[in-house]
């Protein structure tokens, strides 16, 4: 108590305290210590994007890489938040949908399917249509629907 009282009696200490308070207000501590941003790399033969709708459609030999995940497909759509704000067209990737001969590879796991939907915000992957999971050389199973939560590594 005495320490606090004597500390705040000094004018420069009050200034430092106010500065630290304002720094924490404008730059939350959480962001200072959070993970660095993840980079998605996508390549394809062709692409078409609609500026107003905020949709990029990629065709032929589409490959997406994110950390240890690789998606390969015939077609891929990137959906951005359709915001009217200036500079906001490509600032918020909402969803990625891969369609046609989709191959999802992760370490020793390979999943084939017709369609994969990936939501970067929720860190969730939904795999549908003729899902075939192969782990290692001989272990595997088939399903119609598979959900992977990348945050908690849940398989549903």
């Amino acid at each position, binding site marked *: 108590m005495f320490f606090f009282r004597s500390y705040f009696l000094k004018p420069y200490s009050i200034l430092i305290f106010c500065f630290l308070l304002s720094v924490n207000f404008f730059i939350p501590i959480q962001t200072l210590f959070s993970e660095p941003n993840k980079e998605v790399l996508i390549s394809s*033969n*062709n*692409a078409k*994007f609609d*500026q*107003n*709708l905020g949709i990029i459609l990629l065709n032929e030999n589409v490959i997406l890489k994110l950390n240890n995940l690789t998606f390969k497909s015939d077609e891929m759509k990137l959906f951005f938040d359709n915001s009217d704000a*200036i*500079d906001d067209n*490509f600032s918020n990737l909402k969803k990625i949908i891969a369609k046609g001969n989709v191959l999802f590879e992760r370490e020793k796991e390979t999943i084939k399917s017709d369609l994969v939907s990936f939501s970067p915000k929720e860190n969730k992957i939904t795999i549908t249509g003729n899902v075939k999971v192969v782990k290692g050389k001989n272990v595997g199973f088939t399903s119609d629907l598979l959900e992977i939560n990348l945050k908690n590594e849940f398989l549903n």
Partner: protein
Amino acid sequence: MIMIFFVSTNSDFETTSLVETKDFNIGSEGDFFLVDNAKLSGSNKLGNSFNIKAYKINQINNKLPIISGSKITGDINISSKIHIQIKAKIAEINTKSNVLKLFGGFQIINEKYKLIGKEIFFDLKKNTITSDQPLTFLFSKGEIQGGKLQIINSENKENDLLFLINDGVKIKYLL
């Protein structure tokens, strides 16, 4: 004194290549011109227009339809509501075909992205923008690299642009 004159070979382009300058030189035989610190502007019935400042402009091969300019900055309106800013080392304006070519390194700046490349064509008659050279879109969270580009007006919406990228696409995006 500021001099203003028109360079036009096509009736569709009502005020094509209006040139404003303080310095105008005509060759001794009258078939050559060179303009320093010029402003070029043009507009057509479709609502397309351009307004370009050039350090120097001159004819190419002493023929009037093609005017060349160096150190280019300016604005282009593609349709009435789509507005872009341009920067380029060299520009060529063909007043007959209404094609503006930027080359030797260009930048197109929009409020949403910046497009950089080596060469690009604005066909103000057909309302298209094309490039056969590799180019890069830069935006706040990443970039898109493409081999060839064609920008056309969307059939669904009047003021919507469709970007068609061919010959290889690479996207880098920061989540």
